């Protein structure tokens, strides 16, 4: 597949659908959380208001060039990730720019935004930012390992690295999903997923009570707005990969919304139940519970 100009408006369309879906879903999840806690919760449109407000705020300072670029890196990472993976299986319109690279590109591009953001936060000179980054990076080394193993396992299983081909191989019934054909890999990947969504028990990186929101501490107004936008896009972009790899992909938008929501709720449920881990605890947890499953997945596939 090659580039054509029409792909640009298509990509923008995908992006706008995802942003809106993400804003609503985040609010919805927050509302569920509030209701569980017997509170009323935010209105469903609250995220829109926050976003517009932050983009509109005038007070803005900067700590330097890298600080300024941090959010740009961050959001580029989110949007780019979304763009490198086909959203809807079988649709030319929503396959985005996936011709540029395969699964490996997507997996490595995840770090692009993280790295840029960490650098930007670093230039702010705030110790909490550095502490947050230190925690985040430490945790991610072990949290990513089960995912890497799972990906290796299913790449061996399907004998390809192309996301489209992996989805294609899962068509024809629920039982063809990787979830059923290679359950170990899926378990490993989903445990790894917990470590990457910044929800308890793995949210020591942001840890609002200890290091006021960690890396983004110094970010405000439009910087924060860019990052909020990313927080809407990025997890979904990531879940798109999970959906495509493990849960048969989606060949239309309603299925897409449902699957993404379900994947997200998995992390939410776990997060509501468990308290926060310290970094070394979460590393040990991944090492003891998730990594062996991943290794098993690689061996038995």
């Amino acid at each position, binding site marked *: 597949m090659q*580039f054509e100009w029409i792909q640009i408006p298509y990509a923008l369309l995908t992006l706008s659908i995802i942003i809106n879906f993400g804003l609503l879903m985040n609010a919805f999840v927050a509302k569920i959380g509030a209701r569980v806690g017997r509170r009323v919760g935010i209105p469903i449109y609250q995220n829109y208001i926050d976003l517009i407000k932050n*983009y509109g705020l005038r007070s*803005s*300072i*900067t*700590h*330097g060039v*890298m600080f300024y*670029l941090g*959010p*740009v890196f961050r959001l*580029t990472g989110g949007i*780019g990730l979304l*763009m*490198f993976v086909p959203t809807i299986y079988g649709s030319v319109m929503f396959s985005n720019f996936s*011709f*540029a*690279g395969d*699964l490996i*590109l997507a997996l*490595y*591009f995840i*770090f*692009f935004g993280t*790295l840029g953001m960490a*650098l930007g936060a*670093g*230039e702010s*000179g*705030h*110790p909490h930012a*550095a*502490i947050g*980054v*230190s925690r985040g*990076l*430490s945790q*991610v*080394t072990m949290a*990513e*390992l089960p995912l*890497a*193993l799972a990906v*290796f396992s299913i*790449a*061996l299983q399907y*004998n*390809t*690295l*192309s996301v489209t081909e992996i989805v294609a191989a899962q068509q024809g019934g629920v039982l063809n999903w990787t979830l059923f054909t290679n359950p170990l890999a899926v378990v490993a990947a989903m445990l790894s997923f917990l470590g990457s969504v910044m929800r308890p028990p793995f949210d020591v990186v942001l840890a609002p009570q200890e290091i*006021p929101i960690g890396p983004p501490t*110094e970010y405000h107004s*439009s910087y924060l707005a860019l990052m909020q936008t990313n927080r809407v896009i990025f997890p979904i972009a990531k879940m798109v990969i999970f959906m495509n790899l493990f849960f048969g992909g989606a060949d239309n938008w309603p299925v897409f919304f449902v699957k993404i929501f379900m994947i997200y709720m998995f992390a939410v449920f776990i997060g509501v139940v468990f308290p926060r881990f310290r*970094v*070394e605890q979460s*590393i040990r947890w991944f090492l003891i519970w998730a990594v062996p499953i*991943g*290794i098993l997945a*690689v*061996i038995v596939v």
Partner: protein
Amino acid sequence: MVNVIFIIVIGLGAAFLLGLLRENWRNAAYALTIGSLVSMAWIAARWLLFFAVEGGTTVEVFTAGTEPPFAINLRMGIAEAVLLLVVIFSGLLSAVYMSKSLFRLGGRAMSVLLVFIMALCGIILTRDIFNLFVFFELAVIATAGLLLISENKQALSAGFKYLIISQLVSVFLLIGIIFTYHVSGSLNIDTIAGVSLDTMKGIGSLAFFFMLIAVLTEAKPFPANGWALDIYESAHPAFSAMFSAAMAGSAAVYAVDKLLLIGGQQWLPVVTAIGLLSFVAANLLALAQTNDRRTLGYSSVGQVGLILAVIGQRDILGDNYLFIAGGILLSHAVAKAGLYWISGLIGQRNLTDWAVLRRHPMLILSFVSFIAMLSGLPPFPSFYAKWDLVMILATENRLWILAFILLGSLLEASYLFRWFGYILKRETPRQEKNEVENKSPLLSLVPHKLLVIFSALATSWGLAYLWGELSAYDNLFYALPLLFALSFLLLEWVSVWIKNTLAIAGMVAYFVISYPLYDPLQIIFAAIFLLGGAVILLASYHVHGRRIGFYPSAMLMFAGLAMLVVAEDSFHFFAAWEFLTIGSYFMILRGKNSEPHALSYIIFSLGGAFLILTGFALAAQGVVLFNLGSLAHVAAPIAPWVFLLLAIGFMTKTAAIGLHIWLPGAHAEAETDVSPMVSGILLKAGLFGLMVLLMNMGKQQLYGIELTYVMLWIGALTAFLGNLMAVFQEDAKRLLAYSSIGQMGYALFGLALMNQLGWLMALMFVINHYIYKSMLFLSVGGVAKRTGTRDMYKMGGLIAMMPLSFIAVLIGIIAVSGVPPLSGFGGRWIFYNAILSSEYRLPMMLIFISGPIAFLYLFRLIHTIFLGQLKDDHRQIKEAPFWIMLPQMIYVAALMVFAVVPGLLLRHVDAYLSPFFAESAARGGLNWQGLTITSDYGYWSPIPIMVIIAIIFALLFAWLVFVNRKAQKVKQFNIVYSAERPFRPETTHFAWNFFAPYRKAMGFLIQPFVTRFWETLTELLHTIADLFRRFYTGNGQTYAIQLLAFVVVVYLFRVEF
């Protein structure tokens, strides 16, 4: 032709004449001494010319005009001529050297000297055993006399101890001679040798044993040599030079050689065993020495032991016997005499006191040449000799002997190079003014002594050339890169600017001329070695002055690298390998605190080199020019061992885990522009070696274990642990050094996958690692230069002061981490495709986790240095010097280009590699058509990736600039800080022990087991050395008992004949 007997006649006659001269005619006496030595030398030289050039044959000289057994006969052959020259020249030069002492003592001392030299000549020439005894006695008495030249009080007692021992020796020798005469009826060596072995059985054998042991004792074998060490320690250095070079190293060993004609083959193992024991033990004990002359004494004992071992192996050496024994013997003679002569310039006797030599480049050059000769490094004769020796030993399957020789050599190199480290790095001793009168000066540069030393230096290089000519291989001096490197020795007086320009021009030119000869794989390595080296050398322009020593070393390394790439046979490959090792060692040693690290580098490197040498020797099985391609045809029982030896040797260079401990210190402590050379460039030599090995030998199995599979694990472990250790470094350059270990692990892993994509990945790492590691080392070096520290936590917030360095580091870390769109991602992508086509699965796991760990140290590197809080001391800091920045900017550009069009370089290599993996090529290489690179599994389009990311980034940036156009820069402490102001940058910069939680979780994995292992080993060797050193009590009676015990033990252990 002058009759040989005149050598004896002149020596003896002049000695008598000296006695007749009046006591105060010192000048005349000295002139007579020198004159007679010169004429003796002339006679010997004339004979040598006759044998070597005019093709003369061995001549027998009959004294009294009758044939033996009725008269004594002398023999003059090429070996005798050479040895006579060594003896006489060492006497002549020593006489010049100690002219002051000789003048002080007068004609008698000179006549004793002449008798000594004459006696040694006699030992070499005579073919009569009783005559041999006489000359030995003369030498012994002369020795005792010459010892008194020394002003050292201990010399007297050493001389006395020597006399005690000599009595024993004489008794043995006489008894042996008497009974030999009784059995054989002759005193002539050749006649006795002709007597049948049956006659010599029983008492004859015992008689021979006595003679042999007596002569052997004169060669000072371990452990019956305490007296000799005391002599070496206390005698006048010029006498020690003769004692070591002429007496033990030439005359005594030649006497052993002659006597063995009588004993025959069956006695060879005895001599070998004694020689080897002396070689290994003396070098081991030398580790614990601090006195310079005693150390040299141990080294002499060791070297003579090595010569004895070679003599013991003469049954298999055949035509090469003289070449090998001569190479080692002459190297020892010249180097040891030279070192003793240098020791005479130095006022104090501790090894570290030699630091006074530091400001004298010519003396340092002499020292280096001498220790290189002793260690058997190219281009000196001992290198050719050891090469041939090892080849033959391996072919004849005498592997234990081979192992002991290499072990001894390694020990010897260890303390010699440690000593060299002292010279360059230790504090120069100072002398208080009021002390000057009662003590000798720290360094006395007397012209005639210097002349003697420099003539030894000239001889060493002359011999190096000669042995190159004589060897069965090309003369290394004809290699253009080596000549180029050596020519910088002559240019030391010009400024850095000129030298640097010449060096760069030379390297680029050499690449251009050789370009048509390279295949695609060689092009990649040659480009990194030569062009890459030239780029790094740009940074060297920042140094001012003359930078003495840098260019010869650097060019030696690059010459070695250039020769390595094109080496076709094992000899040239190994010689190139040694050159690059030595060159890089000198460069590393230039760092301020690099003394111990450079030492561990050279020891590991030489150890690795010896394994490579053994591997080649096993593989060659006697083939003289062993083509590297023939590695493919090495047969089954040997092949895996060859593979193992070579692989470990090469992995020492790439710092695979377990063999890595030399790297962090060596790379971190090196100078700013040296670190990138040894890291970015030198490490690739090991990979190149591995590629040559794997390409030719493929997969090998040892006891059913697939060796490449083991390598795969080693590579993965190295990547993992290297990265993990990098995370916890506070020193920026150490961090980068550990990172290099990890990166080399990746490359090793790729090679060990043994499929085309794995190799492509390894090559991608080769190129990438060169670019970004050179760049990062330069950036960090520049920062360290400005801040005056390498500890990252002492820096912070430098982005505003050093923006270009920041950009370089930023691009560098993105590339290292493998994040798209930069070129590091290509390596990761190929990695995934490679492991999918591999039959193995488990080792990959370690690589998976190494990737994210790299983020930790990379982030720390950039954050702790450039981000965070700026320190007060650094507010006025400037960007790094232009010349350090320039190569970095070139690298940034190169990384960008390589990221967008990796195919430019790689597609040719890919095509070149595919035939090698043709049979296993169920999975082929990559498809490079169009913009997209496709494999059997996935695809990757570098240009669209770059474009898409750039557009998204640009748009968002524009948007932010638009909504945030009024953003203003605030001051440093203007942060959300609980409504307070931070106290100081030091307390606010979160930097020290940055990954404390990670250490808590993973720290158990980086316990320094490996370091502890090597440290314990070193400690153990030193303890043993220290323990056995006490064995030499300094008591003459003890020494006598030791000698007797030695005789008994040798007798008991000798093979029963």
